């Protein structure tokens, strides 16, 4: 899929596979209804934003931020006001155990 599709003025509908691929990358589970809805809506939005292809940007630098600031650094230390106690850090977790965040198993035990 990568690189094959040329983005032209008229954007073709996203395929169901592409929608599922993006959903997997984004860790989102979509219902059947959502897949077809997003297929349609995302294609429309992409067709709209695709108009930028027509803008001449040869030699134009990219802007990723508008502050003009560079390399803002600080001491590699924390202040009292920025520290959370273990209790505070865990207080919103749905599942904890012995002062740890509890997660679903990542590795399958044979």
């Amino acid at each position, binding site marked *: 899929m990568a690189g094959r599709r040329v983005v032209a003025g008229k954007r073709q509908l996203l395929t169901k596979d592409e929608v599922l691929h993006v959903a997997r990358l984004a*860790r989102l589970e979509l219902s059947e209804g959502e897949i077809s809805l997003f297929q349609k809506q995302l294609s429309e939005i992409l067709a709209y934003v695709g108009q930028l292809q027509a803008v001449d940007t040869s030699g134009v630098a990219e802007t990723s931020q508008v502050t003009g600031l560079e390399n803002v650094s600080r001491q590699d230390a924390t202040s009292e006001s920025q520290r959370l106690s273990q209790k505070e850090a865990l207080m919103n977790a749905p599942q904890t155990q012995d002062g740890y965040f509890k997660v679903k198993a990542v590795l399958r035990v044979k």
Partner: protein
Amino acid sequence: MIPASIGEIQRGYREKKWSVTQVTKACLSRVEKLDGRIKAFLTVVSDRALERAEELDRELAKDQKVLDQKPLFGIPYAAKDLFSTKGIRTTTGSKVLENYLPAYDATVIGRLDESGAVLIGKTNQDAWAHGTSGENSDFFPTHNPWDLNCVPGGSSSGSAAAVASRMVPFALGTDTGGSIRCPASFCGVTGLKPTYGRVSRYGVIAMASSLDSVGHISLSVEDAARVLTVTAGRDPHDATTPEREVPSYLKGLDNPIGGLKVGVPKEYLSQGVLPEVRLIVEKALAKLEELGAKAVEVSLPHTSEALAVYYIVQPAEVSSNLARYDGIRFGNGRERFGKEAKRRIMLGTYILSAGYYEAYYRKAMQVRTLICQDFQEVFGGVDVLIGPVMPHGAFRLEEKVEDPLSLYLEDVLTVPVNLAGLPALAVPCGFEEKGLPVGLQIIGPQFSEDLLFRVGHAYQKVTDWHLKLPPMATNS
């Protein structure tokens, strides 16, 4: 008693006309009376607010000097629900954070607290700040106090509705693509989007990190200036806030605007703007000219591309910022994201994925440069720019929910400002025939908030749009 201006409330403290507790109680009872219909609040913290009010009354009784030391002493306010408030539920309007309790305050919340302001509650918003109408709240939509069948605008929907209905004199909001200016315009109140980096974003639930601006909604430009004096300035916790000094915004407020050059971008009076709105804005411009300002027609050639740039850059940044919501360390699982959040995450993920990054994201970053250059060029010849905030007044609830793209198009006049990181002030300037407010946008170069305030304040001294009350909010 309807809370009027910040200055008036504080004069009352000085003259012992009323106490902080009385004013806070008045705001809370107004919320109780009106919010059943408006639905501006997600959480109201009456006990905490009254405790704080009583504490402040004790401070005041000991020494009146505290009124000079704390610029927002005894002023009740509300905060959009994406500002972290320690121990107070913070949802950003989403079911994902339905029961989330921050363990710390956002920097601005801390600053407002130190300045004597009293937080009375957290306001409703489009979930994750994704929206222009307020209808994307995962909980319920807020209603426009001017017409309860209409949207209040978004995403700072609750904040604008709360101020417009005089529940509080000011409320915090954020503006990433127009989310302060739009609801301010739709609700007939004053809204400030400061320069990107002027106010700290520490503790603010992030939407699009190169675009998010922390600002506020108030009943007057003067009050907007008072609040910015407290919230603005370098924060070591937010690396995008420069060292740059915070001027005394109230000092030059009354300076006349004679000779000021006001640019009117010709693209801002087309772009699908309703003829009625165009006329209202032209009348506002005429008022500024009466005050001595000189109108100059200018052009921002890349205005029409700005929306496309925004709907590439913003979803891309959103998809990155919302990746942290994994339901493991905090919040509910990702299946609780609403449709609009999912849509933007999907869009952003696609745009940033291999094979499409060049065509969309990189291209958008280049056109963003062109948009910044458009503004730089016009500010070489004019001092400020004016135009409408929205192409029309508030639309009816549910009118646009089926068509996300049509809602995106509402942002056409607001997003260029965010892309360039400029400050913009929205002030009420009239009403549509059907009775809904229209807002005027005043835009300036980076860090020119003092100039914007001067222009807005001069306008509010000779007009009374900002003093009008929604019929349902008048004292019975």
